[in-house]
């Protein structure tokens, strides 16, 4: 039987992968974008980060649904709070990075301003990636240390007979 809290693990691994890989590709593209074979990394990175950011907000939403279902069964709900808090930071940082990159993409900025924006973009993406890692760590603590959203079969395994 489907449970509401299972939407979150179904969704959350896509933004983790997309944002981490997208950050690496976008930053490589920024270093070598002009006339290089890596030029295509720029739009590729943008696409991955765009999809990952949408996924991150969906993960935040499904995480809120899961929170309401599982928090009463946890021994340490403060981990959920930290998980939620840093997830908002991650989604916010990648959203901000997307805004900055959109301005860079528009081409309506001077070269010095563009350099500043690329540094800002790198800051958002690297901080966001560190955040993704930490939020993932907190999510793993919830599942593997506290059994959040994990179904425990009875000791006689009768449900599997």
């Amino acid at each position, binding site marked *: 039987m489907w449970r509401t809290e299972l939407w979150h693990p179904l969704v959350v691994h896509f933004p983790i992968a997309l944002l981490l890989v997208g950050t690496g590709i976008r930053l490589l593209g920024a270093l070598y974008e002009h006339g290089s074979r890596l030029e295509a990394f720029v739009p590729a990175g943008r696409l991955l980060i765009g999809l990952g950011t949408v996924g991150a907000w969906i993960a935040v939403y499904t995480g809120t649904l899961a929170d309401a279902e599982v*928090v009463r069964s946890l021994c*340490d709900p403060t981990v959920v709070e930290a998980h939620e*808090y840093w997830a*908002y930071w991650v989604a916010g940082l990648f*959203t901000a990075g997307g805004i900055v990159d959109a301005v860079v993409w528009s081409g309506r900025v001077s070269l010095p301003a563009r350099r500043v924006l690329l540094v800002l973009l790198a800051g958002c993406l690297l901080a966001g990636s560190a955040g993704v890692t930490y939020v993932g760590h907190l999510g793993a603590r919830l599942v593997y240390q506290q059994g959040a959203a994990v179904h425990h079969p009875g000791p006689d395994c009768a449900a599997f007979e």
Partner: protein
Amino acid sequence: MRGFSLFASVLLVVGLLAGCGGEETAVVESGTYEGTISEVNAEEREIYVDVPDTGTLELYFTDSTRVLRDTTQASFGALQSNQRVAVEVEKVGRRLDPITVTILNDGA
């Protein structure tokens, strides 16, 4: 100037979005605490109570949590922000299970 405006906008966006993530809450020993309700989440049957010198308690109601007003039973719907309440909690692990929430006054 445009760069500075964008930088400030980005900081604002990040700050606003991250600010949605809630607040740090306190874990206390079992007992009774008096404070003020700072937030009521009816959908999740959850309240936040600011306790002076202690911090904010996040309390998820259980099936056995009772709400009292003048020693008589009240419903969860009677709880509102800014009410003074006394909460009796049981610490289970690092989770706080509310046993009773007594409304002391209806606040401002």
